[in-house]
Protein backbone atom coordinates (compact mmCIF):
# COMPACT_ATOMS: atom_id res chain seq x y z
CA UNK A 1 0.00 0.00 0.00
CA UNK A 2 2.94 2.35 -0.52
CA UNK A 3 1.59 3.09 -3.94
CA UNK A 4 2.18 6.79 -4.63
CA UNK A 5 -1.18 7.06 -6.30
CA UNK A 6 -3.16 5.97 -3.26
CA UNK A 7 -3.12 9.41 -1.70
CA UNK A 8 -4.35 10.94 -4.96
CA UNK A 9 -7.43 8.77 -5.30
CA UNK A 10 -9.56 11.12 -3.26
CA UNK A 11 -8.65 14.04 -5.50
CA UNK A 12 -9.31 11.87 -8.52
CA UNK A 13 -12.73 11.01 -7.18
CA UNK A 14 -13.48 14.67 -6.67
CA UNK A 15 -12.36 15.51 -10.20
CA UNK A 16 -9.57 17.74 -8.95
CA UNK A 17 -6.54 16.13 -10.54
CA UNK A 18 -4.87 18.02 -13.37
CA UNK A 19 -5.54 16.48 -16.75
CA UNK A 20 -2.08 14.96 -17.09
CA UNK A 21 -2.13 13.39 -13.65
CA UNK A 22 -5.64 12.17 -14.18
CA UNK A 23 -4.59 10.39 -17.35
CA UNK A 24 -1.57 8.92 -15.62
CA UNK A 25 -3.68 7.70 -12.72
CA UNK A 26 -6.23 6.15 -15.04
CA UNK A 27 -3.41 4.34 -16.81
CA UNK A 28 -2.15 3.16 -13.44
CA UNK A 29 -5.62 1.96 -12.46
CA UNK A 30 -5.63 -0.31 -15.48
CA UNK A 31 -2.87 -2.37 -13.95
CA UNK A 32 -3.31 -1.89 -10.19
CA UNK A 33 -6.07 -3.95 -8.63
CA UNK A 34 -5.29 -2.56 -5.15
CA UNK A 35 -5.93 1.00 -6.27
CA UNK A 36 -9.07 -0.05 -8.10
CA UNK A 37 -10.33 -1.71 -4.94
CA UNK A 38 -9.54 1.33 -2.81
CA UNK A 39 -11.20 3.60 -5.35
CA UNK A 40 -14.30 1.41 -5.26
CA UNK A 41 -14.28 1.65 -1.47
CA UNK A 42 -13.98 5.42 -1.56
CA UNK A 43 -16.83 5.62 -4.03
CA UNK A 44 -19.02 3.60 -1.71
CA UNK A 45 -18.21 5.82 1.24
CA UNK A 46 -18.88 8.90 -0.87
CA UNK A 47 -22.15 7.42 -2.11
CA UNK A 48 -23.14 6.65 1.46
CA UNK A 49 -22.28 10.17 2.47
CA UNK A 50 -24.34 11.54 -0.38
CA UNK A 51 -27.33 9.39 0.54
CA UNK A 52 -27.15 10.73 4.09
CA UNK A 53 -27.40 14.40 3.15
CA UNK A 54 -31.09 14.48 4.00
CA UNK A 55 -30.37 13.22 7.49
CA UNK A 56 -27.91 15.93 8.37
CA UNK A 57 -28.16 17.11 11.95
CA UNK A 58 -29.13 20.65 12.74
CA UNK A 59 -25.60 21.23 14.00
CA UNK A 60 -22.75 19.99 11.86
CA UNK A 61 -20.89 17.32 13.83
CA UNK A 62 -18.44 16.60 11.05
CA UNK A 63 -15.80 19.27 11.74
CA UNK A 64 -15.28 18.05 15.29
CA UNK A 65 -15.17 14.42 14.28
CA UNK A 66 -12.90 15.19 11.35
CA UNK A 67 -10.44 16.86 13.69
CA UNK A 68 -10.40 13.80 15.89
CA UNK A 69 -9.75 11.30 13.11
CA UNK A 70 -7.43 13.58 11.20
CA UNK A 71 -9.50 13.61 8.05
CA UNK A 72 -9.50 16.73 5.95
CA UNK A 73 -12.84 18.49 5.92
CA UNK A 74 -13.19 19.92 2.46
CA UNK A 75 -15.19 22.90 1.36
CA UNK A 76 -18.82 22.29 0.60
CA UNK A 77 -19.60 22.13 -3.07
CA UNK A 78 -22.94 22.78 -4.73
CA UNK A 79 -23.34 19.02 -5.02
CA UNK A 80 -22.99 18.63 -1.28
CA UNK A 81 -20.31 17.71 1.18
CA UNK A 82 -17.04 16.54 -0.27
CA UNK A 83 -15.05 13.90 1.56
CA UNK A 84 -11.32 13.54 1.46
CA UNK A 85 -9.70 10.47 2.96
CA UNK A 86 -6.28 8.99 2.96
CA UNK A 87 -6.08 5.22 3.04
CA UNK A 88 -5.72 4.73 6.82
CA UNK A 89 -8.82 6.83 7.26
CA UNK A 90 -10.96 4.80 4.91
CA UNK A 91 -12.19 2.27 7.42
CA UNK A 92 -12.74 4.93 10.04
CA UNK A 93 -14.64 7.03 7.53
CA UNK A 94 -17.54 4.62 7.52
CA UNK A 95 -17.59 4.65 11.30
CA UNK A 96 -17.64 8.42 11.25
CA UNK A 97 -20.58 8.34 8.90
CA UNK A 98 -22.36 6.06 11.31
CA UNK A 99 -21.65 8.43 14.13
CA UNK A 100 -22.97 11.34 12.14
CA UNK A 101 -26.26 9.64 11.45
CA UNK A 102 -26.58 8.29 14.96
CA UNK A 103 -25.78 11.68 16.37
CA UNK A 104 -28.42 13.26 14.19
CA UNK A 105 -31.08 11.04 15.66
CA UNK A 106 -29.82 11.62 19.16
CA UNK A 107 -29.95 15.36 18.71
CA UNK A 108 -33.34 15.38 17.07
CA UNK A 109 -34.85 13.20 19.74
CA UNK A 110 -33.29 15.10 22.58
CA UNK A 111 -34.34 18.45 21.13
CA UNK A 112 -31.45 20.11 22.88
CA UNK A 113 -28.51 22.19 21.84
CA UNK A 114 -26.06 19.74 20.39
CA UNK A 115 -22.49 19.38 21.49
CA UNK A 116 -19.83 19.32 18.79
CA UNK A 117 -19.57 15.60 19.26
CA UNK A 118 -21.46 12.95 21.14
CA UNK A 119 -20.15 12.28 24.64
CA UNK A 120 -17.61 9.52 24.93
CA UNK A 121 -18.86 6.28 26.42
CA UNK A 122 -16.99 3.43 28.03
CA UNK A 123 -16.98 1.50 24.78
CA UNK A 124 -18.08 -1.72 26.41
CA UNK A 125 -19.12 -4.21 23.78
CA UNK A 126 -17.20 -2.38 21.10
CA UNK A 127 -14.91 -4.63 19.10
CA UNK A 128 -11.23 -4.21 19.75
CA UNK A 129 -9.96 -1.51 17.41
CA UNK A 130 -8.04 -2.85 14.46
CA UNK A 131 -4.82 -1.24 13.33
CA UNK A 132 -6.67 0.68 10.66
CA UNK A 133 -9.18 2.00 13.12
CA UNK A 134 -6.78 2.21 16.01
CA UNK A 135 -5.40 5.54 14.91
CA UNK A 136 -8.92 6.85 14.89
CA UNK A 137 -9.91 5.74 18.34
CA UNK A 138 -12.07 8.78 18.91
CA UNK A 139 -14.21 7.88 15.92
CA UNK A 140 -14.72 4.42 17.40
CA UNK A 141 -15.56 5.97 20.74
CA UNK A 142 -18.04 8.27 19.09
CA UNK A 143 -19.61 5.26 17.43
CA UNK A 144 -19.88 3.55 20.81
CA UNK A 145 -21.43 6.68 22.24
CA UNK A 146 -23.99 6.86 19.43
CA UNK A 147 -24.88 3.20 19.96
CA UNK A 148 -25.18 3.76 23.70
CA UNK A 149 -27.41 6.79 23.18
CA UNK A 150 -29.73 4.93 20.87
CA UNK A 151 -29.81 1.89 23.11
CA UNK A 152 -30.78 4.17 25.96
CA UNK A 153 -33.63 5.61 23.89
CA UNK A 154 -34.75 2.09 23.09
CA UNK A 155 -34.51 0.89 26.64
CA UNK A 156 -36.54 3.86 27.81
CA UNK A 157 -39.23 3.26 25.24
CA UNK A 158 -39.29 -0.50 25.42
CA UNK A 159 -42.56 -0.58 27.35
CA UNK A 160 -44.25 1.53 24.70
CA UNK A 161 -43.39 -0.77 21.82
CA UNK A 162 -45.24 -3.86 20.72
CA UNK A 163 -43.61 -6.92 22.29
CA UNK A 164 -43.33 -8.64 18.90
CA UNK A 165 -41.57 -5.61 17.47
CA UNK A 166 -39.15 -5.54 20.39
CA UNK A 167 -38.42 -9.24 19.90
CA UNK A 168 -37.81 -8.82 16.18
CA UNK A 169 -35.50 -5.86 16.74
CA UNK A 170 -33.55 -7.75 19.38
CA UNK A 171 -33.25 -10.81 17.15
CA UNK A 172 -31.94 -8.71 14.30
CA UNK A 173 -29.54 -6.81 16.52
CA UNK A 174 -28.25 -10.22 17.60
CA UNK A 175 -27.82 -11.21 13.94
CA UNK A 176 -25.77 -8.08 13.35
CA UNK A 177 -23.77 -8.52 16.55
CA UNK A 178 -22.84 -12.05 15.48
CA UNK A 179 -21.74 -10.73 12.10
CA UNK A 180 -19.70 -7.98 13.78
CA UNK A 181 -18.05 -10.53 16.06
CA UNK A 182 -17.20 -12.82 13.14
CA UNK A 183 -15.82 -9.94 11.10
CA UNK A 184 -13.81 -8.77 14.09
CA UNK A 185 -12.29 -12.21 14.62
CA UNK A 186 -11.38 -12.41 10.96
CA UNK A 187 -9.86 -8.96 11.10
CA UNK A 188 -7.81 -9.85 14.14
CA UNK A 189 -6.28 -12.63 12.07
CA UNK A 190 -5.74 -10.41 9.04
CA UNK A 191 -5.61 -6.78 10.17
CA UNK A 192 -4.49 -5.40 6.81
CA UNK A 193 -7.40 -6.87 4.90
CA UNK A 194 -9.20 -3.93 3.31
CA UNK A 195 -12.36 -5.94 2.67
CA UNK A 196 -12.60 -7.02 6.30
CA UNK A 197 -12.05 -3.45 7.47
CA UNK A 198 -14.79 -2.05 5.29
CA UNK A 199 -17.06 -5.03 5.94
CA UNK A 200 -16.76 -4.56 9.68
CA UNK A 201 -17.43 -0.85 9.37
CA UNK A 202 -20.40 -1.48 7.11
CA UNK A 203 -21.85 -4.07 9.48
CA UNK A 204 -21.42 -1.69 12.40
CA UNK A 205 -23.24 0.92 10.35
CA UNK A 206 -26.08 -1.55 9.90
CA UNK A 207 -26.36 -1.85 13.67
CA UNK A 208 -26.60 1.91 14.01
CA UNK A 209 -29.15 2.08 11.23
CA UNK A 210 -31.30 -0.53 12.93
CA UNK A 211 -31.00 1.20 16.28
CA UNK A 212 -31.95 4.49 14.64
CA UNK A 213 -34.91 2.84 12.98
CA UNK A 214 -35.97 1.29 16.27
CA UNK A 215 -35.53 4.56 18.14
CA UNK A 216 -37.87 6.33 15.74
CA UNK A 217 -40.56 3.81 16.63
CA UNK A 218 -40.54 4.88 20.25
CA UNK A 219 -43.34 7.38 20.79
CA UNK A 220 -42.04 10.77 21.89
CA UNK A 221 -43.61 11.56 25.24
Amino acid at each position, binding site marked *: MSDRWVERLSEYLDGELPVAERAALEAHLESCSDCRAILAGLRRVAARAHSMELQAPRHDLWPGIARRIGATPARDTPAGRRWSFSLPELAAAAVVLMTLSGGAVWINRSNISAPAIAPVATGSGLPTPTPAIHANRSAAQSYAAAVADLEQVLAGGRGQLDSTTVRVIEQNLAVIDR*AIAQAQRALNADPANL*YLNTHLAE*TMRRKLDLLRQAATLVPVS
Partner: protein
Amino acid sequence: MLLTLAAAVLTLAAAQQVDTTVAAQRGQRLQVNAFGGDVTVRSWNRDAVQIQTSTPGRQRVEVSASATSISVRTQGRRGQHTEVDLRISAPAWMPVTLSGVHTNATLEGIRAPISVETVEGEINVNGGDGLISLRSVQGSVALRGAKGRISVYSVNEDVQVTSSAGEIMAETVNGEITLEGVDAANVDANTVNGDIAYAGPIRNGGRYSFSTHNGDITLTVAEGSNANVAVSTFNGEFESEFPVPLSGTRKGKGFTFTLGTGSAQVTLESFQGTIELVRPGGRKDRERRERRED
Protein backbone atom coordinates in the same frame (compact mmCIF):
# COMPACT_ATOMS: atom_id res chain seq x y z
CA MET B 1 -56.80 30.56 -4.36
CA LEU B 2 -57.82 31.32 -0.79
CA LEU B 3 -60.69 28.97 -1.24
CA THR B 4 -58.33 26.32 -2.49
CA LEU B 5 -55.96 26.80 0.39
CA ALA B 6 -58.64 26.61 2.99
CA ALA B 7 -58.56 23.15 4.42
CA ALA B 8 -61.75 21.23 4.19
CA VAL B 9 -62.18 18.61 6.83
CA LEU B 10 -64.63 15.80 6.60
CA THR B 11 -64.98 13.33 9.42
CA LEU B 12 -66.74 10.08 8.88
CA ALA B 13 -67.41 8.41 12.16
CA ALA B 14 -68.36 5.03 13.38
CA ALA B 15 -70.01 3.82 10.25
CA GLN B 16 -70.37 0.20 9.27
CA GLN B 17 -69.56 1.22 5.75
CA VAL B 18 -67.77 4.38 4.71
CA ASP B 19 -67.84 5.49 1.10
CA THR B 20 -66.82 8.99 0.21
CA THR B 21 -65.23 10.68 -2.78
CA VAL B 22 -63.15 13.86 -2.75
CA ALA B 23 -62.17 15.82 -5.86
CA ALA B 24 -58.44 15.78 -6.56
CA GLN B 25 -56.27 18.21 -8.45
CA ARG B 26 -52.72 18.01 -9.68
CA GLY B 27 -50.25 19.15 -7.08
CA GLN B 28 -52.01 17.26 -4.34
CA ARG B 29 -50.55 14.23 -2.59
CA LEU B 30 -52.55 11.43 -1.04
CA GLN B 31 -51.51 10.95 2.58
CA VAL B 32 -52.80 7.93 4.44
CA ASN B 33 -52.15 7.32 8.10
CA ALA B 34 -53.63 4.05 9.30
CA PHE B 35 -52.53 2.46 12.56
CA GLY B 36 -53.53 -1.01 11.47
CA GLY B 37 -55.42 -3.04 8.89
CA ASP B 38 -55.18 -3.68 5.18
CA VAL B 39 -54.86 -0.56 3.08
CA THR B 40 -55.26 -0.86 -0.67
CA VAL B 41 -54.72 2.03 -3.04
CA ARG B 42 -55.65 1.44 -6.66
CA SER B 43 -55.48 3.87 -9.53
CA TRP B 44 -58.55 4.81 -11.51
CA ASN B 45 -59.22 7.23 -14.33
CA ARG B 46 -61.02 9.92 -12.35
CA ASP B 47 -59.49 13.06 -10.83
CA ALA B 48 -60.88 12.14 -7.45
CA VAL B 49 -60.06 10.05 -4.43
CA GLN B 50 -62.57 7.53 -3.18
CA ILE B 51 -62.26 6.10 0.33
CA GLN B 52 -64.18 3.01 1.29
CA THR B 53 -64.19 0.83 4.35
CA SER B 54 -66.54 -1.81 5.59
CA THR B 55 -64.70 -2.75 8.74
CA PRO B 56 -67.25 -3.12 11.52
CA GLY B 57 -66.55 -1.37 14.79
CA ARG B 58 -66.31 2.02 16.33
CA GLN B 59 -63.57 3.43 14.16
CA ARG B 60 -63.27 6.88 12.69
CA VAL B 61 -62.02 7.72 9.25
CA GLU B 62 -60.99 11.33 8.91
CA VAL B 63 -60.59 12.81 5.47
CA SER B 64 -59.18 16.28 4.98
CA ALA B 65 -58.20 18.17 1.87
CA SER B 66 -55.92 21.11 1.26
CA ALA B 67 -54.21 22.62 -1.76
CA THR B 68 -51.35 20.19 -1.42
CA SER B 69 -52.87 17.04 -0.03
CA ILE B 70 -55.79 14.79 0.58
CA SER B 71 -55.30 13.14 3.94
CA VAL B 72 -56.96 10.01 5.23
CA ARG B 73 -56.51 9.08 8.87
CA THR B 74 -58.03 6.26 10.84
CA GLN B 75 -58.43 5.94 14.58
CA GLY B 76 -60.67 4.47 17.20
CA ARG B 77 -63.71 6.48 18.16
CA ARG B 78 -62.12 7.73 21.37
CA GLY B 79 -58.76 8.30 19.77
CA GLN B 80 -57.34 4.88 20.55
CA HIS B 81 -55.52 2.83 17.96
CA THR B 82 -57.65 0.49 15.91
CA GLU B 83 -57.39 -1.60 12.78
CA VAL B 84 -59.36 -0.48 9.77
CA ASP B 85 -59.35 -1.92 6.29
CA LEU B 86 -59.31 0.84 3.69
CA ARG B 87 -59.95 0.64 -0.02
CA ILE B 88 -58.85 3.79 -1.79
CA SER B 89 -59.07 4.73 -5.44
CA ALA B 90 -56.83 7.56 -6.62
CA PRO B 91 -55.63 9.09 -9.88
CA ALA B 92 -52.52 7.40 -11.23
CA TRP B 93 -50.73 10.77 -11.29
CA MET B 94 -51.17 11.31 -7.56
CA PRO B 95 -48.13 10.84 -5.28
CA VAL B 96 -48.91 8.63 -2.30
CA THR B 97 -47.53 8.67 1.24
CA LEU B 98 -48.76 5.87 3.45
CA SER B 99 -47.73 5.18 7.02
CA GLY B 100 -48.90 2.71 9.58
CA VAL B 101 -47.90 0.32 12.32
CA HIS B 102 -49.86 -2.93 12.04
CA THR B 103 -50.63 -2.11 8.45
CA ASN B 104 -50.41 -4.12 5.26
CA ALA B 105 -50.10 -1.89 2.21
CA THR B 106 -51.01 -2.72 -1.36
CA LEU B 107 -50.67 -0.14 -4.13
CA GLU B 108 -51.66 -0.80 -7.72
CA GLY B 109 -51.15 1.36 -10.75
CA ILE B 110 -49.89 4.60 -9.21
CA ARG B 111 -47.53 6.31 -11.66
CA ALA B 112 -46.10 8.88 -9.28
CA PRO B 113 -43.73 9.05 -6.28
CA ILE B 114 -44.62 6.62 -3.51
CA SER B 115 -43.57 6.44 0.12
CA VAL B 116 -44.78 3.63 2.37
CA GLU B 117 -43.67 2.93 5.94
CA THR B 118 -45.06 0.26 8.21
CA VAL B 119 -43.77 -1.60 11.23
CA GLU B 120 -45.58 -4.90 11.25
CA GLY B 121 -46.98 -5.41 7.80
CA GLU B 122 -46.24 -6.38 4.25
CA ILE B 123 -45.79 -3.92 1.43
CA ASN B 124 -46.76 -4.84 -2.12
CA VAL B 125 -46.51 -2.18 -4.78
CA ASN B 126 -47.12 -2.47 -8.49
CA GLY B 127 -46.18 0.83 -10.07
CA GLY B 128 -44.47 4.00 -8.96
CA ASP B 129 -42.62 6.70 -10.82
CA GLY B 130 -39.97 8.99 -9.35
CA LEU B 131 -38.88 8.76 -5.75
CA ILE B 132 -40.06 5.45 -4.35
CA SER B 133 -39.38 4.51 -0.74
CA LEU B 134 -40.84 1.36 0.81
CA ARG B 135 -39.91 0.44 4.39
CA SER B 136 -41.15 -2.25 6.71
CA VAL B 137 -39.63 -3.56 9.91
CA GLN B 138 -41.33 -6.93 10.21
CA GLY B 139 -42.89 -7.42 6.82
CA SER B 140 -41.66 -8.29 3.37
CA VAL B 141 -41.36 -5.63 0.69
CA ALA B 142 -42.19 -6.34 -2.94
CA LEU B 143 -42.07 -3.81 -5.76
CA ARG B 144 -42.70 -4.34 -9.44
CA GLY B 145 -43.24 -2.14 -12.45
CA ALA B 146 -41.56 0.90 -10.93
CA LYS B 147 -39.38 3.54 -12.51
CA GLY B 148 -37.18 6.05 -10.74
CA ARG B 149 -35.05 6.28 -7.65
CA ILE B 150 -36.03 3.22 -5.69
CA SER B 151 -35.30 2.49 -2.04
CA VAL B 152 -36.68 -0.70 -0.51
CA TYR B 153 -35.97 -1.69 3.06
CA SER B 154 -36.97 -4.35 5.52
CA VAL B 155 -35.45 -5.61 8.72
CA ASN B 156 -36.71 -9.11 9.21
CA GLU B 157 -38.09 -10.18 5.84
CA ASP B 158 -37.28 -10.46 2.17
CA VAL B 159 -37.03 -7.58 -0.25
CA GLN B 160 -37.91 -8.01 -3.91
CA VAL B 161 -37.80 -5.68 -6.89
CA THR B 162 -38.93 -6.98 -10.26
CA SER B 163 -39.53 -5.51 -13.70
CA SER B 164 -38.38 -2.08 -12.62
CA ALA B 165 -35.94 0.54 -13.85
CA GLY B 166 -33.91 3.32 -12.32
CA GLU B 167 -31.59 3.54 -9.37
CA ILE B 168 -32.07 0.84 -6.77
CA MET B 169 -31.08 0.65 -3.13
CA ALA B 170 -32.25 -2.50 -1.34
CA GLU B 171 -31.53 -3.39 2.26
CA THR B 172 -32.61 -5.91 4.83
CA VAL B 173 -30.98 -7.43 7.86
CA ASN B 174 -32.43 -10.90 8.07
CA GLY B 175 -33.83 -11.66 4.64
CA GLU B 176 -33.12 -12.25 1.00
CA ILE B 177 -32.84 -9.61 -1.68
CA THR B 178 -34.09 -10.43 -5.16
CA LEU B 179 -33.67 -7.97 -8.01
CA GLU B 180 -35.05 -9.55 -11.13
CA GLY B 181 -35.81 -8.08 -14.52
CA VAL B 182 -34.44 -4.76 -13.40
CA ASP B 183 -32.73 -2.22 -15.61
CA ALA B 184 -30.58 0.00 -13.46
CA ALA B 185 -27.25 1.75 -13.77
CA ASN B 186 -26.83 2.16 -10.04
CA VAL B 187 -27.65 -0.70 -7.67
CA ASP B 188 -26.77 -1.16 -4.01
CA ALA B 189 -28.06 -4.30 -2.28
CA ASN B 190 -27.07 -5.12 1.26
CA THR B 191 -28.19 -7.76 3.74
CA VAL B 192 -26.59 -9.32 6.77
CA ASN B 193 -28.20 -12.73 6.82
CA GLY B 194 -29.61 -13.67 3.44
CA ASP B 195 -28.96 -14.34 -0.21
CA ILE B 196 -28.83 -11.73 -2.94
CA ALA B 197 -29.84 -12.41 -6.53
CA TYR B 198 -29.52 -9.90 -9.35
CA ALA B 199 -30.81 -10.52 -12.86
CA GLY B 200 -30.60 -7.62 -15.23
CA PRO B 201 -28.27 -5.89 -17.64
CA ILE B 202 -25.02 -4.38 -16.48
CA ARG B 203 -24.99 -0.93 -18.03
CA ASN B 204 -21.84 0.77 -19.24
CA GLY B 205 -20.68 3.24 -16.63
CA GLY B 206 -22.97 1.74 -14.03
CA ARG B 207 -22.17 0.90 -10.42
CA TYR B 208 -23.42 -2.31 -8.86
CA SER B 209 -22.69 -3.23 -5.27
CA PHE B 210 -23.90 -6.40 -3.58
CA SER B 211 -22.96 -7.29 -0.03
CA THR B 212 -24.04 -9.96 2.42
CA HIS B 213 -22.42 -11.37 5.51
CA ASN B 214 -24.04 -14.74 5.67
CA GLY B 215 -25.53 -15.58 2.30
CA ASP B 216 -24.91 -16.30 -1.35
CA ILE B 217 -24.75 -13.80 -4.18
CA THR B 218 -25.94 -14.77 -7.63
CA LEU B 219 -25.25 -12.28 -10.38
CA THR B 220 -26.55 -12.78 -13.88
CA VAL B 221 -24.03 -11.50 -16.39
CA ALA B 222 -25.01 -11.32 -20.04
CA GLU B 223 -22.42 -11.95 -22.72
CA GLY B 224 -20.88 -8.70 -23.89
CA SER B 225 -21.13 -7.00 -20.51
CA ASN B 226 -18.40 -4.44 -19.78
CA ALA B 227 -17.47 -4.40 -16.14
CA ASN B 228 -14.63 -4.26 -13.71
CA VAL B 229 -15.62 -6.85 -11.10
CA ALA B 230 -14.24 -6.88 -7.55
CA VAL B 231 -14.94 -10.02 -5.57
CA SER B 232 -14.33 -10.23 -1.83
CA THR B 233 -15.01 -13.02 0.60
CA PHE B 234 -13.44 -14.23 3.80
CA ASN B 235 -14.75 -17.71 4.21
CA GLY B 236 -16.84 -18.18 1.09
CA GLU B 237 -16.49 -19.49 -2.43
CA PHE B 238 -16.53 -18.08 -5.92
CA GLU B 239 -18.05 -19.87 -8.88
CA SER B 240 -18.63 -18.81 -12.43
CA GLU B 241 -20.57 -20.40 -15.25
CA PHE B 242 -18.13 -18.87 -17.70
CA PRO B 243 -14.36 -18.35 -17.74
CA VAL B 244 -13.18 -15.37 -15.74
CA PRO B 245 -10.08 -13.44 -16.84
CA LEU B 246 -8.28 -12.80 -13.57
CA SER B 247 -6.30 -9.57 -13.64
CA GLY B 248 -5.23 -9.17 -10.08
CA THR B 249 -5.59 -10.43 -6.56
CA ARG B 250 -6.51 -8.75 -3.34
CA LYS B 251 -5.55 -9.65 0.16
CA GLY B 252 -7.77 -12.30 1.68
CA LYS B 253 -9.89 -14.24 -0.70
CA GLY B 254 -10.53 -11.35 -2.99
CA PHE B 255 -9.69 -10.62 -6.57
CA THR B 256 -10.69 -8.47 -9.48
CA PHE B 257 -11.24 -9.13 -13.14
CA THR B 258 -12.40 -7.21 -16.14
CA LEU B 259 -15.11 -8.12 -18.60
CA GLY B 260 -15.01 -6.35 -21.94
CA THR B 261 -14.01 -2.71 -21.57
CA GLY B 262 -14.57 -2.71 -17.80
CA SER B 263 -16.87 0.27 -18.07
CA ALA B 264 -19.13 -0.62 -15.14
CA GLN B 265 -17.97 -1.21 -11.58
CA VAL B 266 -19.34 -4.34 -9.91
CA THR B 267 -18.57 -5.10 -6.27
CA LEU B 268 -19.49 -8.50 -4.85
CA GLU B 269 -18.90 -9.17 -1.16
CA SER B 270 -19.94 -12.13 0.93
CA PHE B 271 -18.19 -12.86 4.19
CA GLN B 272 -19.05 -16.54 4.21
CA GLY B 273 -21.29 -17.33 1.28
CA THR B 274 -20.87 -18.37 -2.33
CA ILE B 275 -20.54 -15.69 -4.98
CA GLU B 276 -21.72 -17.00 -8.30
CA LEU B 277 -21.81 -15.56 -11.80
CA VAL B 278 -24.32 -17.10 -14.16
CA ARG B 279 -25.47 -16.51 -17.71
CA PRO B 280 -29.05 -15.37 -18.33
CA GLY B 281 -31.08 -18.38 -19.33
CA GLY B 282 -28.23 -20.69 -18.45
CA ARG B 283 -28.65 -23.85 -16.43
CA LYS B 284 -28.06 -22.21 -13.08
CA ASP B 285 -30.26 -19.26 -13.90
CA ARG B 286 -33.08 -21.66 -14.83
CA GLU B 287 -32.55 -23.67 -11.66
CA ARG B 288 -32.68 -20.53 -9.57
CA ARG B 289 -35.92 -19.43 -11.20
CA GLU B 290 -37.44 -22.86 -10.67
CA ARG B 291 -36.47 -22.78 -7.00
CA ARG B 292 -38.14 -19.40 -6.65
CA GLU B 293 -41.31 -20.61 -8.34
CA ASP B 294 -41.48 -23.57 -5.95
